[in-house]
């Protein structure tokens, strides 16, 4: 990987220097969870050090070019994928497509912001004893989270919410929505979507420039890199340290967290004292760091008395459908995912599976379509897909997958990363419920497109995961999970997990909105704890 410096790593843009000896809140990661926590705490006057493994990329650094942008910001440190799922064969070193930069994966998130549904917090109750699924009800309900969903939607600027207007229909949406209407779907729209339809919150309205997965140069799309992180730094209470890889969380003799060890970009080891640690490295790096933080008090990994750290890894049940038409579509023009059909995002087991799924518009350029449409394929059947590019419409299926104990993140001692630390291995196998849901989605997507004249459709298998969830799950009882209802480790006072790995189950919705809502709620809790001196 290139070690090009993309932005200043010291000076006023990264906030005041905080001493390594000062016991502060240490936030590990600056994405949806970490960036939000850092802003919410520093806005309340609580001093934070933010350790971000990646560089500080700015909107002017982002590239409207799929492969160069991927090489600029994707997390490409050593990882392995294992298990029977197809990603392990096609992309054995890329189980997930995440971002390593300030702003984390919000840098390249598409923008869909549906909320979780009430039943999705209680899947053990609703789905019953689904064999092979390690289901558990969340220790919180939709009602607990609702006020924080409101605040998250205001922070992100979701369209269709709180009086904000819808984005207009782009070409890909016109095909998608007309097909939806023809097959009898009702609950479709161009959002809710985390990109400004008109100027909001100091950022401009969309210029329909596409490239949602490469970082938005126009800053119309919300990310913590354009909102929470700069605002946290502006408080004067946040010391952002890019290119700082956390390698261990330590605790004192009584078991309370007391520091984070991290490497700077030159590989020098530092120790930052901590009174609280908020771990937000995404669902692969967060459990990896806990497993690397094993101690005599925590021999199986920090906060792992339940044995659930790294387990119940979820990646959403996904698939894509690309449909060919006789006339032009130009799917790549405009906001890539500003189209959502919610009619299948419900519980109705007469369809042959538990849980629900969304359809969302999706567009790739020729470079990524070639890489991901049918990995490993070649020949005339393959080039037919690319030859139809101009006349192609695309959508993504995203639905709830079942947590399974054996789907897990572990340390791979046979493969060190660039620092000599064990790389994470991501093991995954579809649950039969996941397969049934995907097939249902494919068949309904074909109907949507055939209803508006598709001459052919192609079913694309799941990509390296963009939604990675569940590896430090939230539970009422310590024996069932890793963190409590506030995201605090059952076993380790002062240790919070602040990302999507706390999700007890994954629901159908894209996770970013919920990660932000949980982080706002957690920051309020931490602030109250610190305020009361406990």
């Amino acid at each position, binding site marked *: 990987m290139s070690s090009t410096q993309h932005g200043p790593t010291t000076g006023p843009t990264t906030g005041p220097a905080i001493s390594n000896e000062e016991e502060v809140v240490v936030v590990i990661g600056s994405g949806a969870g970490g960036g939000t926590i850092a802003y919410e705490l520093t806005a309340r006057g609580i001093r934070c050090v933010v350790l971000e493994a990646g560089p500080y990329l700015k909107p002017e650094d982002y590239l409207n070019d799929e492969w160069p942008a991927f090489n600029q910001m994707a997390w490409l440190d050593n990882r392995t994928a294992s298990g029977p799922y197809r990603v392990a064969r096609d992309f054995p070193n890329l189980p997930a497509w995440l971002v390593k930069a300030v702003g984390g994966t919000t840098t390249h998130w598409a923008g869909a912001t549906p909320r979780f549904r009430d039943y999705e917090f209680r899947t053990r109750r*609703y789905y019953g004893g689904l064999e092979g699924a390690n289901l558990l009800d969340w220790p919180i309900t939709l009602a607990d989270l609702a006020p924080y969903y409101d605040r998250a939607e205001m922070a992100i600027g979701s369209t269709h919410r709180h009086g904000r207007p819808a984005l207009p229909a782009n*070409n890909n949406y016109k095909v998608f929505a007309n097909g939806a209407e023809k097959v009898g779907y009702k609950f479709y729209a161009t959002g809710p979507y985390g990109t400004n339809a008109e100027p909001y919150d100091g950022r401009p309205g969309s210029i329909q420039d596409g490239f949602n997965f490469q970082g938005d140069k126009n800053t119309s799309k919300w990310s913590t890199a354009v909102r929470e992180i700069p605002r946290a730094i502006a408080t004067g209470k946040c010391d952002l340290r890019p290119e700082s890889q956390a390698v261990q969380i330590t605790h004192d003799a009584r078991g309370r967290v007391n520091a984070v060890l991290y490497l700077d970009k030159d590989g020098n080891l530092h120790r930052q004292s901590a009174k609280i640690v908020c771990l937000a490295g995404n669902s692969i790096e967060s459990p990896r760091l806990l497993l690397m933080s094993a101690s005599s008090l925590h021999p199986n990994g920090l906060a792992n008395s339940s044995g659930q750290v790294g387990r119940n890894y979820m990646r959403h049940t996904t698939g894509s459908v690309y449909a060919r038409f006789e006339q032009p579509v130009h799917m790549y023009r405009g906001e890539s995912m500003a189209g959502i059909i919610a009619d299948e995002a419900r519980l109705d087991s007469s369809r042959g599976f538990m849980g629900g799924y969304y359809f969302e518009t999706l567009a790739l350029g020729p470079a990524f379509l*070639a890489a991901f449409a049918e990995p490993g394929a070649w020949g005339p059947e393959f080039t037919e897909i690319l030859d139809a590019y101009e006349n192609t419409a695309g959508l993504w299926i995203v639905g709830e997958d079942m947590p399974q104990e054996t789907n897990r993140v572990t340390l791979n001692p046979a493969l060190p990363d660039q620092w000599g630390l064990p790389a994470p291995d991501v093991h995954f196998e579809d649950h039969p419920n996941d397969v049934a849901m995907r097939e249902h989605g494919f068949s309904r997507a074909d109907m949507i497109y055939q209803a508006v004249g598709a001459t052919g459709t192609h079913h694309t298998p799941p990509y390296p995961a963009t939604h990675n969830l569940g590896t430090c799950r939230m539970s009422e009882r310590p024996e069932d999970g890793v963190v409590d209802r506030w995201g605090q480790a059952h076993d380790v006072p002062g240790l919070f997990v602040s990302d999507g790995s706390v999700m007890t189950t994954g629901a159908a919705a894209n996770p970013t909105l919920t990660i932000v809502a949980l982080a706002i709620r957690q920051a309020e809790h931490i602030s109250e704890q610190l305020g009361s001196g406990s």
Partner: protein
Amino acid sequence: MPDTSPASTISPRAHTALVRLLRVAFPHSRFPDGPYERTAAEIIAQLDASLWHRLALTQGLESLDAAAGGDFAGLDDDAALALLREIGDAEFFAFVRGVAVVSIYNDHETWGLLGYEGSSYEEGGYVDRGFDDLDWLPNPRIDEYDGPEKFVEVAADNEVSASGGGDR
């Protein structure tokens, strides 16, 4: 693109065979030779990535003529495709395919031929350049449904009693 002289690393015959292989494996009648030539150059430039690359790739390319009974580049499309299907699992072919699927479709000349316009931000995006110019379907609703039908989150058969009947 790397400026690599193919003749210095593999034979001219093998180079010709490689370009032909690329066109048969990734056939696009609209594409000129340029994208395939550039992809061949990129593959050859990676010969020295490892000894194994050099051994497997050189042997694979140099033996295409033998597999074709004399002249791979002279086979017609169907015959060449049939031969490639036979060697599709060979490691050298997998390597060639892996480089080609990135290189051919990352080539700006092919973007234009496929109808893709590339970088858009500096052009002001597509807001005034056709993001909504599709005219063969009516303009759909963009706001959320506001009609009489109510969204049913949980089907009646999947409702659980307040006492928690679903928790088995």
